[in-house]
Each structure stands twice: as structure tokens, then as C-alpha cells.
């Protein structure tokens, strides 16, 4: 059972230095608001885990709060590389970071093992790849049914997962539509879960469509309502992906000082997400607006 709180109090209450964090999302519903609050709160020894470190991880790394990144694809989707991530690895700027590397499937299979309390998950990937040699985590098991060996991954259980959905009730029963990525598995694998939503809704709304529920209050410890919390990522049906911002980051992040200046302006320079959105301005918000297109209704029946 969870409680509805503000982002600032939730982050400072929940996230301790030394924790492993999973900010979930595959392109969709990436919790930028939470990431920025983590930067403002100030840490220096966080392990960030995530299949697809995105701009938000680049920003966290640039701010100096990260000591390790566990990942499977660290890039700016459709644009290029993550330059702060690379600077940390290639040049130790602002600090060296350790890395642990999976493939996408290896990563989500490991989260599944964490969520389902399995000692390992078998995957038909890694064989023939040098990734095996770089990781003690990836091992093999002989099938007892006469097949050859199959690679396995161990469970990943982050200390904290920050997951998102378009709407949830105050308990954290959450409806998500569009691309779910690994939000569910991250929520179920983590010790403590913060759920960020575009809007709170009634439990009746959730109960009207239980098949839409991606994870239930069981998995959630804190609910934070944070409109536009995913910008420049997007919330399906609420606002568009700000692709221009992803392209801009490629320029901003080329240089460490420019990156710091960006953080000063857009993260340290605002108190919270509301100020960030005000700073974005109405014109940008209007550009990201999307016309409505409702799903065809389904009848659950009044049993």
C-alpha cells in the first residue's frame, strides 16, 4: 500500500547514496522529473541500472552523482551516443564510472528473475558474443533434457525503481498504454517503488478496466503526480515526444561545460517540475499537443 507524496520529499526519503536505482521506460514515459530531482538532491555514489540509459542518465552522470551504470544500450535514440556517459568512461569526467553490461533481453530477463524470485533465467543470447567474457554475471547451465548449454542471467533487484504510467489511483494501481517497455518487471523486481503518473484517477477508473492495469498497489510504495513528468520523453495520448530536445542534447552534451550550464539552467535553476514546465513555455507545450484518438470501448459487463 502506498502514499501520495511530492517528488522532492519522496526522493530524499527513499533514495540513499549507495543505492542501485532503476529509472524505467523504453523511450516512453521516462521519469525525467524524478531524475532531475535526484540531481538536485545531490548524491555521489548511485548505481544506475537500466536497459536504455537515456538523456536522463547522461544528465545524472554529468552531475557527478553516479559511480556505476548497468545497462544494455547507452545511446541517444535515433540521434547518436550519450556524450556524458562516454566522457565518464573514456576520460573519467566528471568522475570515472564502473559499467556492467547486458543485452536488452539479458537485462529484462534478469529483471524478470528478480521479480519472480528465480535464481536465474535462461536466454538464447550471449552465445558467440564477447559480452560473456566481460561479465561474471552471465553464466551457462546444461539443460537436463539433452540440449546443449544455455546462457543464464542472475536476478537483478534494484534498491529503488522509479516507474511511470499515465494514471493511477492513490494506492498505485496503474494504467499504462502505449509502449510498456520494462516498467512492470522493474516495479516488481525492486525493493522500493516510486510510481510517477501524469494524473491521479479514481479507483473506480482503474476497476473499470482491470486488464489495463500494468502493476498494482502491491508493487508501489509512493505515488507522485507529476504532469509532463516525462518530458522530453512522452506520455502516449498526453503529449508528443520532444524530438527537438533529443537533437539539441547532442549539441549541448558535446562539451562538459555546456552540459553543466544546461544543468544549471534546467535542473538546478528550477525548484521542481512545475517550474521546469513553466520555463518550457506555452508555445513548446502547444507544439507537443496531440489530437485525441480514443480506443474502441470494451464492455466488462455489470456482473
Amino acid at each position: 500500500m502506498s502514499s501520495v507524496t511530492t517528488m522532492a520529499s519522496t526522493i530524499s526519503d527513499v533514495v540513499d547514496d549507495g543505492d542501485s536505482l532503476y529509472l524505467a521506460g523504453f523511450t516512453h514515459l521516462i521519469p525525467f522529473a524524478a531524475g532531475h530531482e535526484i540531481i538536485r538532491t545531490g548524491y555521489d555514489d548511485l548505481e544506475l541500472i537500466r536497459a536504455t540509459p537515456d538523456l536522463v542518465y547522461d544528465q545524472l552522470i554529468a552531475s557527478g552523482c553516479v559511480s556505476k551504470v548497468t545497462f544494455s544500450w547507452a545511446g541517444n535514440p535515433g540521434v547518436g551516443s550519450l556524450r556524458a556517459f562516454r566522457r565518464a568512461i573514456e576520460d573519467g569526467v566528471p568522475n570515472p564510472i564502473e559499467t556492467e553490461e547486458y543485452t536488452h533481453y539479458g537485462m529484462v530477463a534478469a529483471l524478470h528473475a528478480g521479480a519472480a524470485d528465480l535464481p536465474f533465467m535462461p536466454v538464447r543470447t550471449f552465445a558467440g558474443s564477447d559480452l560473456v567474457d566481460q561479465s561474471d554475471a552471465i553464466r551457462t547451465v546444461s539443460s537436463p533434457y539433452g540440449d546443449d548449454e544455455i546462457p543464464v542471467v542472475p536476478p537483478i533487484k534494484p534498491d529503488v525503481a522509479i516507474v511511470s504510467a499515465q494514471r493511477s489511483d492513490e494506492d498505485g494501481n496503474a494504467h499504462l498504454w502505449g509502449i510498456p517497455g520494462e516498467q512492470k518487471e522493474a516495479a516488481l523486481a525492486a525493493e522500493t517503488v516510486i510510481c510517477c503518473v501524469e494524473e491521479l484517477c479514481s479507483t473506480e477508473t482503474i476497476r473499470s478496466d482491470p486488464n489495463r492495469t500494468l502493476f498494482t498497489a502491491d508493487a508501489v510504495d509512493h505515488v507522485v503526480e507529476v504532469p509532463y513528468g516525462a518530458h522530453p520523453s512522452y506520455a502516449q495520448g498526453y503529449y508528443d515526444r520532444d524530438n527537438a530536445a533529443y537533437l539539441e542534447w547532442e549539441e549541448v552534451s558535446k562539451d562538459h561545460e555546456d552540459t553543466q550550464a544546461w544543468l544549471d539552467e534546467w535542473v538546478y535553476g528550477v525548484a521542481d517540475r512545475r517550474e521546469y514546465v513553466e520555463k518550457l513555455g506555452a508555445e513548446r507545450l502547444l507544439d507537443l499537443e496531440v489530437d485525441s484518438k480514443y480506443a474502441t470501448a470494451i464492455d466488462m459487463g455489470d456482473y
Partner: protein
Amino acid sequence: MEYTDTELMVTAAAEQLEDDDSVLVGIGVPNLACNLAKRNHASNLEMIYESGTIGSNPSSLPLSVGDPVLASGAVGIESMLNGFSYYLQGGRIDVGFLGGAQVDKYGNINSTVIGDYDDPAVRLPGSGGACEIASNAHRTIIISPLEERRFPEEADFVTSPGYLDAETERADLGLRGGPDAVITDKAIMGFDADGEMIVERLHPGVTEDDVQAATGWEIQFADDVERTREPTDEELRLIHEELDPDGVYLD
């Protein structure tokens, strides 16, 4: 009509696709190639993205594989876990597209590091889903500009297995399929029975010497090397007017 290298790569990649293929689509050339094929010879092509969207029918070009335009109007959307488990590993993907910083003689691909893993000259994004695409799709198509630094005899790091060392059988490691074609800006390559790359078609105006000069090993040429077909006017019109009207990938 005039055309660019990229446009030729798009039409050449489209030709590799068959009707009813399920394709794991990447951004850029693969996306344009799939959409072109779908409008021409492969109207039943099923486009699946790494983000889990199935049967996407985007009204505009996505910047990333997870753009909302790929979700809205898809026939289905899977979680990453289900997408990789049931579509890729389950054997439902006929064709996967791959790229990378290095492609070696046996079609092994590096998208992890240039230089030493622990002290890299360039840290690349990593596998993402590439290793599982290379391992589980029934055939893969590699897309890359042909440059010597991109085609070394041996990759600095094998992220995604091709034909390995050409002695180990993929099937013995539990790997399905394998690289079927390499589409470059100078030529199209296939693989011989041992899994070694072999040039099968030269693009118009390109010589064998041009290809050899841009390759990091002594590359084989088929006995009957042919010329790559040029894009037709209709293909170019489709690409420019319908598939990439804003010139995102083609300018």
C-alpha cells in the same frame, strides 16, 4: 533520375525483403526500406520494432524505435520481455536489420567498444537488442557504409555473432539463422558456405578495386559479380514524396 548512395541502399535493402516476412525494423535505412517494400512487392510485410510495437503503420517517420507514432495504430504492443521472448527467441522474426561500428570478415559485428574493453578509445552504445537479433532472427541484413575502419578483418569486440570464426557452427551454439546480406554504399555482399563475406553485386560506377580499398582484408568476389539495380523513378518518388517528405534521413 539522380540518386544518392543512401537511396540506393534503401532500394537494395527493400529487395531483400519478401512478402509475408516479419521484420524487426531499425531506424533510418531499414525503416525506409521496409516501408518501400511494403508499398511495392511485399504488401504483407509485418513491421515489428524493438520497442515492442507490432504491425506499426507510422503516419510519419519516427526518430527512434519507440516514438508514439509507432504505438498509435499498431496491431499489438508487447513488453520488452514478451517481445524478445516470443517474437525474437520464439522464432517469429524472419528478418532483422543490424548495423555497427565494425563488421568483420565473417559478419561478426561490434557495437560495443573501439579499442580495449576496459580502456576504450571509443565507448559505443552496446548491444541493445542486436545480439539477440543476430542470434535469433532467421536471417539478418547488415547495413553499413563500406570503409576500411568499419570493415576490419577481425572486430575489436564481437557484440553480435555472425559466422564466428567460420569453423564453429552457429547451430552448435544454439544460434538461429545468420547474416544473409551486407548492404553498403559501394556493393552488396553475401556469405559463402564457410561464412566468409563475398561481394555479389557492385553498385553502378564502383569497381572491385574501390571495394577492396575500402575493406580491411582481401575480400572475395563472386565469379559472376553483377551490378546493383538502380532505383527506379517510381521508387525515388515514393521515398521522397511519401516516405521521407521532410528529408530526415536522405539529406
